[in-house]
């Protein structure tokens, strides 16, 4: 068990009126990257013709019984260990409610005893968010409403696709430790990176394999209390998450300042209108009648199995970023390199002697992820060194890099082939004087302050040198000559 430390976060002061702060907890659902569904032999694949990835078990046909997918449990444990949770004996329970895209009209989930409890997640900025639990459950199908215009005489109907029904999910519930929308977004980004890193999920928010619900409340800044929260659903992107949290927190503040108070409810984010709306009313509030699923037996992962999974865990994003930073890479570049999964290449190049900052810049900005895995780390290190030692300009280095990825040749050969030799200042100055002589009018207008003409001069030089001129040096020269 780990103790949650106090978190950073601005409290959203800049977003809220008065002396209020936000209290945010997130529930993240992620689809697990298994071959088959949580309790059924049907394939777990995205897309496909409706109702083709189905089997009597995930259709909930009478007489069928669920059997736990061992791989889903293993991925669940990986996630639990990556989030520093206690992995424990767990029990599947039924969550009972009627819904047409849920084949059994109950969802198999975990209620009192979850697979993973009491974890923590450290964000890129060093703040630590508590993880209450991460439990396994099954996904529902999808309904499409046809002809549902809302007009009373419109004969609407619904189509249901059960391809997604029974897909394994992990629900990761944070503690209410988040204090502003940016922090909430970085929590989701970090969690997503972990899920991808441990191979548990593809983490695609746009395909719905990662879904986020936000529990939002507010309180006087610095207070300890937890006030009434609302659960915001239907948040489909990180941007929406930030907007929805801000809207909801302001709504709460408005209510309190008007002498009123929010009531605990589920609300839906309306992306178009930029506001949340109440879901089902209190009268319809569900009693899920949870009870242990008698069709399943408790899962009690052995300590040996847990240790085996722990030993096979890959380095986590936080550890990988840290490793690059310790070798001298700037934090932002390191983060991007890890996000793009190219930190291994960067590290190898740095170890081969490349300058860390230039190395991560290339990895973060100039390398396409596709093909980069074929890049030889020593060649890459040579390229960075050629650039930092002045043998290549930044522009030339980018071109050589692209050629390296394409052909696999070494940078020196490519540079020689392309005729790349860094020009010294003298050559460039001579060339610039010629161009100025050819364009006297423009030059005097430029000297008088018509700054946009700088592009014309740079363009002429680049044309004459076939792009080999050092842009930074050229700009310095232009500035100096104009001031003469």
């Amino acid at each position, binding site marked *: 068990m780990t103790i949650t430390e106090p978190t950073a976060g601005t409290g959203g002061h800049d977003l809220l009126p008065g002396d209020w702060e936000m209290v945010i907890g997130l529930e993240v659902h992620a689809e697990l990257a298994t071959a088959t569904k949580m309790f059924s032999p049907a394939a777990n694949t995205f897309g496909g013709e409706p109702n083709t990835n189905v089997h009597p078990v995930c259709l*909930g046909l009478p007489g069928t019984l669920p059997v736990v997918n061992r791989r889903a449990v293993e991925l669940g444990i990986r996630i639990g260990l990556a989030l520093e949770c206690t992995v424990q004996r767990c029990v599947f329970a039924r969550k*009972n409610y009627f819904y*047409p895209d849920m084949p059994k009209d109950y969802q198999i989930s975990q209620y009192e005893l979850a697979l993973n409890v009491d974890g923590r997640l450290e964000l890129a900025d060093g703040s630590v968010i508590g993880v209450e639990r991460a439990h396994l459950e099954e996904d529902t199908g999808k309904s499409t409403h046809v002809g549902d215009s809302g007009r009373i005489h419109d004969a609407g109907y619904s189509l249901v696709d059960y391809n997604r029904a029974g897909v394994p999910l992990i629900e990761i519930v944070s503690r209410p430790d988040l204090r502003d929308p940016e922090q909430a977004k970085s929590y989701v980004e970090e969690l997503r990176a972990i899920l991808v890193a441990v191979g548990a999920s593809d983490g695609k928010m746009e395909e719905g394999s990662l879904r986020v619900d936000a529990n939002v409340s507010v309180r006087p800044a610095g207070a300890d209390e937890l006030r009434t929260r609302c659960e915001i659903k239907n948040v489909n992107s990180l941007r929406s998450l930030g907007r929805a949290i801000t809207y909801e927190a302001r709504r709460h503040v408005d209510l309190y300042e008007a002498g009123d108070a929010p009531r605990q409810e589920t609300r839906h984010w309306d992306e178009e209108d930029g506001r949340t709306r109440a879901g089902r009313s209190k009268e319809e509030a569900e009693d899920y*009648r949870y009870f242990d699923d*008698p*069709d399943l037996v408790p899962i009690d992962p052995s300590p040996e199995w847990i240790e085996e999974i722990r030993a096979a865990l890959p380095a986590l994003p936080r550890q990988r970023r840290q490793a690059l930073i310790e070798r001298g890479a700037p934090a932002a570049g390191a983060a991007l390199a890890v996000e793009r999964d190219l930190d291994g290449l960067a590290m190898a190049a740095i170890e081969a002697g490349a300058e860390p900052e230039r190395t991560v810049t290339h990895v973060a900005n100039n390398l396409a992820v596709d093909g980069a895995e074929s890049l030889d780390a020593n060649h890459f290190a040579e390229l960075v060194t050629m650039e930092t030692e002045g043998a290549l300009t930044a522009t030339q280095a980018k071109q050589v890099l692209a050629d390296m990825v394409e052909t696999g040749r070494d940078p020196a050969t490519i540079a020689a082939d392309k005729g790349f030799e860094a020009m010294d200042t003298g050559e460039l100055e001579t060339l610039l004087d010629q161009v100025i002589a050819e364009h006297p009018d423009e030059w005097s207008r430029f000297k008088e302050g018509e700054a946009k003409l700088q592009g014309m001069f740079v363009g002429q030089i680049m044309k004459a040198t076939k792009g080999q001129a050092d842009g930074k040096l050229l700009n310095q020269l232009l500035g100096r000559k104009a001031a003469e």
Partner: protein
Amino acid sequence: MSDPIAAPRTATDIAAAVADGSVAAVSIVEDHLDRIAADDGEIHAFNTVAAEDARQAAAEIDAAIAAGTAVGPLAGVPIALKDNFCTSGVTTTCSSRILQDWVPPYDATVVERLRAAGAILVGKTNLDEFAMGSSTENSAFGPTRNPLDTSRVPGGSSGGSAAAVAAGFAPLSFGSDTGGSIRQPASLCGVVGLKPTYGAVSRYGLIAFASSLDQIGPFSTTVADAALAFDVIAGHDPRDSTSIDRKLQAVTPALGAGVEGLRVGIVSELTARDLAGFEPEVVDRATEAAEALGDAGAKVEEVSIPSAIAGLAAYYMIAPAEASSNLARYDGVRYGRREPGVNTAAMMQASRTAGFGDEVKRRIMLGTYALSAGYYDAFYGKAQRLRTRMIEDFERVYADFDVLLSPTSPCVAFPFGAKADPLTMYYNDVCTIPSNLTGHPAISVPFGTGADGLPVGVQVMGPMLAEADLFRVATVLEQAAPPATPPSGASR
């Protein structure tokens, strides 16, 4: 009744005769289909008779034997299955309007195993809707009549399967037992009925009533046939997570082992003469059965298990609670009956209102209430604690006894409508429910007659996986049973 079928009559004898080629499976099947055609109009044991499928399966068995191919232990044996077993391509209704025309796309594990053993499905038998009842009067398609006295119920909920064997429609049938639904109708119809250890037989493909209590078992006219059937259907199934994951010993070899030295306990709470609803003849037969076992060398003693009676209350919380969830899926969306509604919720509500009968609705409501927020601890939680205590009590008793004895049902077959009050009907399960709550096996064996010459069944209970001991005791009781005098109602 039509003329008796020429020998062989039992599953054991039929399988032997078919296997050695002395009788054709097709003629066995035709004999039984004839009998069904003649008498089932009155008895109504069957919801569906699969005559053509049965003839074809029989022809295949005969062809296999002619070709010298090895056949299974039930080759050519006609079987009837309770209409809550999923049978691929054969309508499976649970005797409910909500599944009236539903045809499963798959076979239950038990059905697969029976087919692989050479058994021939002749039809699907009537039951109390979704197995909820003790008389088969709750079927949406009308009641089944007791073949021994057609003015009386066959018991339930597997009344159709019990009646099918008693009427000679099939030598072997199968039912499900959640609170006594195999043993009680076996007792009322004068046949053998086994509820195996929970987890000994796969539930995959058995349409659930109460998942933690349901168990599949056989009906037969002889103890040996029940043992043969159990050996075919028992064993681990990876598709049922509650299935016992170990190799089970065959029980057939234990049949003749006798009861010398076996420790037999008579449960005093279930044989007390002052218990309401217990007919004195029924208690007498149980006492005589114990004496017969003593004569055969068993050590017989009375034993008190106070929680045994309390099982009834726990059962009628736990079973409806599980049922309320298991039966949620019948909502008109994917299969089964659908009634129109202005929106999805209204459609679901209308379909369930029209599709379920009163007893099913009653139990769904009871169960929903028992699981509701604020009531869970007082009802469902308390019932589970009582169940745990009962298991401990029985385990403790089984440290000193190999098997326990009691009547199966407090009474013999009763007339239609005699127990219209649900609580009176529920009380009928008092002797059988403990074994469902504990998960232990129990068998009902005919042992003489009670009021009006109707059969009485004696129940033998044992600890987990003690089926072999139950069959040893049942065989001795079968041999010691007083000759059955046919009741007046049988002379039709």
